[in-house]
């Protein structure tokens, strides 16, 4: 009964392909996020959704398209993959009324583009 689960855990694909990463949370949170951890180890926010509505979109190429079918799911679709997209992608969730507890993260998806 993982709180925030991402699939797949590892993804190796060729340049130019289109791929999706799925995320689901069972915490009843109303906000979900995608973060990217690049080779320099920075964790940078990409998107956030609150109750299926896009709240944050941080200058991410439009090849990246998040989709939130309901507030428990936030998927990330990436078109025309490039070498520079190789990174670990973390999904997270929180409640707007989160108090002092921040986000709950998934275990990450390591994407390798070859």
């Amino acid at each position, binding site marked *: 009964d993982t709180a925030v689960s991402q699939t797949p855990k590892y993804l190796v694909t060729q340049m130019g392909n289109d791929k999706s990463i799925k995320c689901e949370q069972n915490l009843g949170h109303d906000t979900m996020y995608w973060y990217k951890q690049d080779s320099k180890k*920075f964790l940078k926010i990409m998107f956030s959704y609150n109750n299926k509505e896009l*709240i*944050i979109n941080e200058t991410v190429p439009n090849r990246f398209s998040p989709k939130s079918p309901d507030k428990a799911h936030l998927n990330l679709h990436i078109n025309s993959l490039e070498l520079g997209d190789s990174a670990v992608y973390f999904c*997270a969730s929180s409640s707007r009324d989160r108090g002092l507890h*921040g986000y709950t993260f998934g275990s990450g998806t390591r994407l390798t583009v070859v």
Partner: protein
Amino acid sequence: DQQVKQNSPSLSVQEGRISILNCDYTNSMFDYFLWYKKYPAEGPTFLISISSIKDKNEDGRFTVFLNKSAKHLSLHIVPSQPGDSAVYFCAASVQRDDKIIFGKGTRLHILP
């Protein structure tokens, strides 16, 4: 433009001693600060936080200190235990923006 800086990429501390991890920030609008801990192949997990209206918050072996005038915070772990070996991320947010900004992390090694 790093708004949250962790200038020590790694730190080694003897088991039983105090570990002190440091963090600096540049955005004076930040009003909420957090520390996350991350093991390999896992996501970051929340450790402890502090609001800007406080200068100290303690939770068991973990204490976070905030110096707003210096835009500096630190995490103290005492006594350090082998299971504390991990990467520690400092993070900050402006609560109304609902977006957490992370530092690059500091890898802590607890030596036997």
